[in-house]
């Protein structure tokens, strides 16, 4: 029997992490930690490497890409296009077809739905750079149904290693071409009523006591891409209170059309300025983000969604959690005088704190 290249999130094995990429590793870890992550599995990067080796793609791609001058736009575009065609045009070996079809059928069966809609997501790996961030560099495909389509998008994820931008990025970062490989996540698709992101600190000032939540109607892609101005909330981690709320005019949402395609459409008038999330749901999102932060022991940037198919109280699911990188590297600056009681009492008398010093005119 061929070596197994499927890694289920709920049987996550840390030894496999180098072959899963950041995104799939994180989903496995969060699932094992008991967080409500939609079910799914990863096709490891070893499957990608082995396929490239067996089919001869590896040397063809190396020849095509390694020689190209990435500053020459036309040359880059043509090499990239040719490389992607090579990847998508090469049939998958039967052992991989069997493994992927089997895993997809198992997932569909477990969720009680044939041809379960799934998201197919890229999760790139880099051997020498285990922490390399490829955020946003590679493709994600939503609402994929049937095993044929899953395999088709698996290959598209692989091919997304050869977009012009991805090639250019690797060259900029001095990553060797053959160090980079692609793991692919196949995960039950949530068609959310509302989704968004949450930071376990206030991104405006680095306040670690707050959780900042952006929320908007439909799929999270509208929030992540900046297509809408989301509703924004701050929740105090300790008190659980919602300390700030801004409900925005949410003009568009990403939803399914009648033909199972994800489309961007205008939000009807009455929902545009209505809050996209209830207070209970805000607190549930905050609690989820806090659990992810506690699990990792450092501030997180999470993606979440509200699944209308689940009962209230259990309907918030976690799609992604990454370490927050901006504020968590800084030390909180407190004036030196603060430690000395008298200096700081005098300081506070001179500058009554908080929101109280707002200019009048």
């Amino acid at each position: 029997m061929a070596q197994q290249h499927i890694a289920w999130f709920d049987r996550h094995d840390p030894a496999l992490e180098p072959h899963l990429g950041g995104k799939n590793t994180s989903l496995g870890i969060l699932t094992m930690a008991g967080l409500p992550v939609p079910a799914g599995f990863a096709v490891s990067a070893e499957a990608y490497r082995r396929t490239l080796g067996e089919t001869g793609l590896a040397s063809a791609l190396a020849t095509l890409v390694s020689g190209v001058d990435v500053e020459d736009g036309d040359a880059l575009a043509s090499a990239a296009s040719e490389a992607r065609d090579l990847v998508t045009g090469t049939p998958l070996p039967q052992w991989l077809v069997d493994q992927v079809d089997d895993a997809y059928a198992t997932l569909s069966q477990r969720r009680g739905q044939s041809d379960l809609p799934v998201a197919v997501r890229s999760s790139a790996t880099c051997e020498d750079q285990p922490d390399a961030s490829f955020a946003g560099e590679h493709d994600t495909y939503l609402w994929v149904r049937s095993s044929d389509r899953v395999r088709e998008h698996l290959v598209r994820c692989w091919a997304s290693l050869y977009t012009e931008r991805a090639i250019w990025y690797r060259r900029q970062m001095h990553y060797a071409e053959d160090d980079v490989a692609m793991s692919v996540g196949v995960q039950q698709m949530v068609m959310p009523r509302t989704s968004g992101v949450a930071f376990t600190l206030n991104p405006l000032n680095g306040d670690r006591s707050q959780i900042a939540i952006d929320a908007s109607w439909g799929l999270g892609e509208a929030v992540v891409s900046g297509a809408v101005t989301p509703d924004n909330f701050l929740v105090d981690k300790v008190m659980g209170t919602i300390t700030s709320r801004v409900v925005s005019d949410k003009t568009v949402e990403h939803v399914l059309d009648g033909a199972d395609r994800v489309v961007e459409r205008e939000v009807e008038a009455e929902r545009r300025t209505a809050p996209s999330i209830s207070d209970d749901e805000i607190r549930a999102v905050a609690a989820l983000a806090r659990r992810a932060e506690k699990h990792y022991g450092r501030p997180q940037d999470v993606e979440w969604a509200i699944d209308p198919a689940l009962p209230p109280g259990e309907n918030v699911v976690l799609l992604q959690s990454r370490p927050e990188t901006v504020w968590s590297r800084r030390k909180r600056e407190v004036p030196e005088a603060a430690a000395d009681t008298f200096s700081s009492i005098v300081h506070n008398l001179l500058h009554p704190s908080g929101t109280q010093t707002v200019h009048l005119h």
Partner: protein
Amino acid sequence: MPDRFPSPFEVVTPTGAEGWEELYGYSTVFSEDRRELEESMFWFMDGVHTPEAIEPWDATVLDFALTFLGQYTTRHYVIPPALGVDIRYLNGHMYLSPVPVTDPAEIEARVPEFAERAGHYFANWSTLYDAWMDKIKGVIAELEAIDFQPLPHREDMSVITEGRGIGSGQLMMFEYDKLVQLTAKLWAHHFEFLNLGYAAYLDFFGFCKQLWPSIPDQAIAKMVAGIEVDLFRPDEELKKLAQLAVELGVGERISGVAADTLAAMDGDEAGKQWAAAWDEAHHPWFNFSSGSGFYHSDKVWAEYPDIPMGFIASYVAALGRGESLARPIEAIEAERDRIVAEYSELIDDDENRATFDGKLGLARVVFPYVENHNFYVEHWGMSQVWGKMRQLGQLLTDAGFFGTADDIFLLRRNEVPDAIFDYFHGWAVGIPSRGPAYWGREIPRRQAIMQALRSWSAPPALGVPPEVITEPFSVMLWGVTSDSVKAWLGGSDNPDGTLSGFAASPGVAEGPARVILGAEGISELQEGEILVAPLTAPSWAPVFGKIAATVTDVGGIMSHAAIVCREYGLPAVTGTAFATKNIKTGQRLSVDGNTGQVTVLD
């Protein structure tokens, strides 16, 4: 939006109130003599303590309180950026103007003096606080011993045989002087620790805001607040009495009328046992005012036993419904510890954590004073002051000077010795006093003036506001901020039906409003209503068991309403400025204690 309030010199006297200036000290009314200075200052009305017109004798307390506050900041502790808080009466309403130190070099120069003087108090807080407790109890004991008796037909024979030489007339003069002195001592001790306590609290507050700019104010208050505090004791006593009544099986005998209740208790042993416990609780806990303690008209439980008895009746009813009255002390403690631990855990370096622990420690040492002084001074002490003044008023009423005992409060404190002298003089010489005729004319005139002043709608502030309010005592003690000044300037129009104030106690509630303007109205509150009041007083505590939320016109995060609502787990929005003006009883409200928003839903 206008950018200034009326000048005090633009404000007109209401019809019928002509001559009101004579009812207050000459140094505490606006005058041409200091016009330029007075017009250059920004004055705000103290809605927290004195939202209503002030009768002449009651101004004694305010004169003392504000002047002594200034003495401490300016002359005792040398608070670097602040001198005193100036005070003026305008149409009978009190306006305040904190005086900052503006020259940075002078502020700098005051710092070492402050460190030395205030430092002594911080370093020796516990010893000094124990001594304070003895001093204040001593002052109160002396107040309790004050006694005004009618002058006798003949001096007692012992005055002759003991060769005393001093008689009842002189003693009455001395007794009043002593009452004024003791009132002054009460208020001196009131401020001995208060601003230092607030300063230490503010230091912890400021540090938390540096660590966590968005931390809710109420979280900081919860970390510091005491759990077993004397100010809560009167309410605790009522709960204990309700519990005892149920245990003894005499609960159904308790009604809102104290005399009926006590008569019903007299019939058997259980009833007598309960009545003894009721008597036991009186001293000192029923020296508890239903108002702020600043007005002679604030009703004290000891003198109006129907008030506490009514509260006990409602507690008995709550017990009958199976509700628990006990404050879950352990749960409150555990919650406070959890909050402290979780914030502390968010601090990622040891140095800041040590500073946090140190400041929290100091704030907790000083804060019991901030919470408790109110019971000893405003409630227990002032109950005695008003009671003794009323005794003197009754004596002069019996002598024909006044129509009722309370008329004495229409005299300025320096006019009372004249009235005593008049009474003494007539008695000594053996001729009728002038008082009955003189005060018989003057009291009705003053009553008419006060009536006219009471119906005057006082502007929230006077003069040109500073661009930014940074004077620490405005912010700390009165919650006057740049935002509140802006809201006052914006006036009371709220086209979208919303009001904003301090997010004083978390939670969200909806319900019908009940606008209550004073303690006498609190019995109208129904289960589930939202209390809308200018402010609340500690003695209102029993109503917090049945309301859904609280909204006040004045007060900040440490105001009474805020503290009690956090205790009871009710949402509260304080300092909205216009709630009692804009909201009508019966309107449905949504109160968001997390954000400080109040919305009128219909």
